């Protein structure tokens, strides 16, 4: 900070963050994909010339926190940045090259000012469709069945996109090319906004000052993270959390974590974590990193610290290659949300030993996703929902009842909207599950119950979820939340379902979906 004035630093760094946010707003507004527009499953940002993220719109969805730099490194390895010219771009969705699941497509556009490479404007968004065998493909046995892999590489917008060969290749491999190509174009539009904001800043303040601020932004975030870590007592804190079912054999999968705090640094090591699953319940390493950083942001630093590459300097994250938090190619990864929730909760439990006053009990902390579909003469109708569960209790109070889970932020679908839009089921109850939050001085949040009356024969039901057997743990003597469950009431019969699977329902069935409660805080 010796040569840059406080006002220049504050104003220019805020301008970078606001450019990243503006890119995100533009991308979300223009997206066809409702998961981008409504669940904000996207991220945008500005990287420096070394590919280190300087400013990122992390307020969109937690699961993409800190994801840009990792994917970038693989792109730069595929084609060195020195070879880039204006009009080039990098693209990848490869889970084994710093990507998440195949639906998350990354775009990086170089920013040139007066012929000099200053940095990159980046956007990642969840695409509606990337080909593959199924959209709910926890049944895929390898990543090939999950869709088209776009390996990290450099292309030219003029030559390869806008009707060029890469665009044609992608369009030919997906079911909804208009929307998907349209959404990738929105990513390019967001990147153009980022480029023009940086070019404007250079014109206003001079390139030298801008480069100085970009470096200082990394140092600033690093300092704030170090300050926050230094306040945690040194030591190694271990915890584990277990996924109910590997989706194939029915065996559980356990995450092991050791969080080591030493001065102002922190190491998170997932050594001992179970081997990769044969189903899509594997988390690519980048997703594991994002979940870990989200836990640290939630617990240690708060959201006032802008996350960028500087954040990583005092933090080391390791996961054994071949484990379900860092699988080997070509393991399928589509259902990565469940494993990373277990990683998230393991850190919650580990840090709970170090700073119990700042950590909350585990919540339901799972993605509970259901799909109801029917094939009639008019075509397929599909209704997909992600259900909210109970939040963990804290020293401050009870956990929130029925709420979106910590790595995402999906809203529910109004019952009046389902009445209007779907004639093959009707929601008859949407309530909190009484007493499902763990007991304690402060109770955990309650899970939700949604009951669907099936109005036609032949409705296909699919589910992927977790915590049917292992509920959310309490903290400091608080009780566990209730486990989740799912069943069909058919006349006098009750048919329970496991957390992964599908079935065909009959007219008159009542499908009951119950999410779990959060853990309690303190002895009651």
């Amino acid at each position, binding site marked *: 900070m010796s040569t840059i004035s*406080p006002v220049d*630093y504050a104003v220019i760094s*805020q*301008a970078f963050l*606001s450019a990243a946010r503006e890119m995100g707003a533009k991308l979300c507004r223009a997206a066809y994909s409702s998961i981008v527009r409504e669940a904000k499953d996207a991220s945008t940002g500005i990287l420096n010339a070394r590919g280190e993220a300087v400013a990122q719109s992390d307020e969109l969805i937690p699961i993409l926190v800190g994801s840009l730099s990792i994917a970038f490194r693989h792109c730069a390895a595929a084609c060195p940045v020195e070879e880039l010219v204006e009009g080039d771009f990098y693209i990848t969705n490869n889970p084994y090259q710093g990507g998440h699941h195949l639906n998350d497509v990354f775009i990086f556009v170089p920013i040139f000012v007066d012929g000099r490479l200053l940095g990159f404007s980046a956007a990642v968004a969840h695409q509606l469709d990337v080909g593959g065998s199924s959209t709910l493909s926890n049944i895929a046995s390898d990543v090939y069945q999950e869709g088209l892999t776009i390996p990290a590489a450099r292309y030219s917008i003029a030559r390869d996109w806008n009707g060029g060969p890469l665009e044609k290749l992608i369009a030919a491999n997906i079911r909804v090319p208009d929307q998907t190509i349209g959404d990738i174009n929105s990513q390019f539009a967001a990147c153009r906004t980022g480029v023009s904001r940086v070019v404007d800043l250079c014109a206003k303040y001079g390139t030298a000052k801008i480069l100085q601020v970009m470096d200082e932004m990394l140092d600033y975030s690093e300092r704030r993270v170090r300050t926050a870590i230094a306040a945690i007592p040194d030591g190694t804190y271990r915890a584990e959390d277990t996924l109910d079912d590997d989706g194939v054999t029915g065996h559980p999968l356990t995450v092991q974590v050791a969080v080591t705090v030493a001065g102002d640094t922190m190491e998170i090591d997932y050594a001992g974590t179970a081997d990769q699953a044969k189903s899509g319940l594997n988390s690519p390493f980048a997703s594991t990193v994002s979940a870990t950083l989200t836990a640290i942001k939630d617990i240690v630093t708060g*959201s006032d610290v802008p996350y960028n590459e500087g954040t990583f300097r005092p933090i080391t994250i390791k996961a054994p290659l071949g484990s379900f938090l860092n699988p080997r190619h070509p393991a399928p990864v589509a259902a990565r949300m469940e494993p990373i929730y277990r990683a998230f909760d393991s850190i919650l439990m580990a840090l709970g030993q170090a700073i119990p006053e700042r950590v909350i009990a585990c919540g339901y902390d799972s993605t509970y996703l259901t799909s109801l579909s029917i094939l009639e003469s008019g075509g397929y109708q599909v209704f997909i929902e992600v259900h909210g569960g109970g939040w963990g209790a*804290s020293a401050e109070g009870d956990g929130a009842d029925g709420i979106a889970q910590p790595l995402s932020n999906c809203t529910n679908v109004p*019952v009046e909207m389902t009445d209007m839009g779907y004639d093959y089921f009707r929601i008859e109850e*949407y309530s909190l599950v009484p007493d499902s939050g763990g007991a304690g001085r402060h109770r955990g949040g309650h899970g939700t119950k949604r009951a669907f009356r099936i109005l036609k024969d032949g409705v296909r039901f699919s589910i992927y979820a977790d915590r049917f057997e292992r509920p959310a743990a309490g903290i400091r003597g608080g009780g566990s939340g209730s486990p989740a469950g799912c069943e069909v009431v058919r006349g006098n019969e009750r048919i329970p379902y496991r957390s992964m699977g599908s079935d065909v329902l009959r007219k008159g069935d009542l499908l009951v979906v119950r999410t779990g409660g959060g853990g309690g805080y303190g002895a009651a």
Partner: protein
Amino acid sequence: MRVGIEIGGTFTDLVAAGPNGLTITKVPSVPARPDEGVFDALDRAGIACEAMVELAHGSTVATNAVLERKGARLAFLVTAGFGDVLTIQRLERRRIFDLLYRKPVPLVARKDAFEIPERTLFDGSIAEPLDTGRIRASLEAFLAAGDYGSVAICLLNSFANPDHERRLAELIRDVDPSLDVTCSYDISREYREYERATTTTMAAYVQPVIAAYLARMESVLASRGFAGNLSIMQSNGARMPAAAMRRNAVTALLSGPAAGVTGAVRQAGLSGIRNLVTLDIGGTSADVCLVVDGKPQLSQEAKIDGLPIRTPMVDIATVGAGGGSLVWADDGGMMRVGPQSAGANPGPACYGRGGTQPTLTDAHVLCGRLRPEARLAGSMQLDVEASRRVFAPIAERFGLEPAAAADSAVQIAIANVVAAIRQVSTERGRDTRDFTLVPFGGAGPLHAAAVAEALHIATVLVPPNAGVISAYGLLVSDHSLFESLTRPIPLDEAAPDRVRDTLGGLRTELAKRIEELGVPGDRLFEMSLDMRFKGQAFEITVPLAEADVPELTRERLLALFAREHEAIYSHGGGVGRNAVEIVSYRVGLHVPQLDRLSMSSSGAETSAEGSCEVFDRGERLDARLLWRGSLRAGQSVQGPAVIEDTTATIWIPKGWRGEIDGHQNLIMRAAA
């Protein structure tokens, strides 16, 4: 005499228009008994109640009733199976990295919800009939046990068929006639049960508070001989006769910022300016709003205390950058301004009421834009030494002189305001470069030129008496009513006729209501349709011109939808390939306020001119010091200059020039 009185958190402002021109008065608010502020202001201004033909009023009474949870004790009746609707809400978290996140607290506790076996479907048909005989005894027992003051009823799909809600209301009146009953059908007829239920509870909750407040005020007014019209400001920027608030008071919530926007729009309109960004900087926050072609942008929903209310509302973005915003250094060594505020009490250190932390107002004092004698905020002399004292630690922290640290804080606050304006403009696809910035509130005109520069806005228009523009807005606002209705239909050949029928019905209903309220004047209708691709979760509001309606065709509706889709999402979304549906209908009825009353400066008839030293953007400048009241039309002022007005202070930076136009607006532009 026509009088506008706006009650704010700290001050109650009065603007009166009479045969002898404008009267402007500012008195301290009486938070515990806000109506006293109204009569204090009238007394101070020397206005006799019998001389008033009109009193337009804006107050925070409804908003405070919600924030302080001092409304009616409510029972809530809801379709069986959905008694938790107010708690479950929409699941989303508004702060996504907050582990201690709590949901907004509903206005009705779960134990006060009563489930009614019945089910109406979205097309108005009945899946399970309501059997009032069957529930009567248990409902009676529930109501008797609860000591309720009001009952809010919201049944699933009641927008399509209000029969069950109406019959329940009758049953309650029969069981206990002392209870007020509010049906969702009379408050909001749009689908999405959580938002409609919350809006209904909100209406029922504030109803008795507003009614008692108005009754008290009307009785004092009557005893003082007032025989004119009393109207109340709404959050949509227009007002309604007080009687309308007895039907639905939700439109009175959050009306404060809207009055200022209306005032700014009208006053700028006199100078022919119709595209503007309003910037209202008061004590705790900066509020910005985008105005296109003389119309403030409306949103169909706003939140109060985290709870949604479905009613058209002036779309205002707020950032914590007001005079009381605190200046601090974070643990990474960055200087920050806000969002924490010193509030009205103790307020900035220079107010001498015990403030010990540096604020934005202190920064302006140290920079020299606010003189000790300026007598801000009601006649106190500002304590410059106190400002210097509280700025010393942060100045030292950054190795700066106090004035330089203060200057940095001002520039950072300006950057925060710029970000808020981007949020309502460029982030929503609006380019503000051709807009005019209209600052108001006591501190708006201090920051406006720098904000404009950062946004590439060429022109700033400072209204006279910018500190009381909200009270002026009350006087010049239209009377407006809005109604909406969810009635989903596919966009097919039959759609145009159904659109005409439905809109016609809503127009007739609004016209009847405004007739009953006795509002004279022209009736102007504004219509729009909420449309979407079949299966989409969100609708797009598509405006329909009056001339469109008689000749409406399916193709025309599709083209209008495509145009709006393109404007919002920058692509047509596949119009022509994907089925489109019309979901809801919206009609607004406006009775324009034709009297083009002009705001004017007041006080200081002296033509004296002084000078002052101002620290601005790293430079120490010798600035002119002028009094707004002494500037005449056509007179031009070259910056750097400080212009003091009775209720606001204006800063013209170096390189800027200001000129008073024929409507007493100060037009500021950067020298080419």
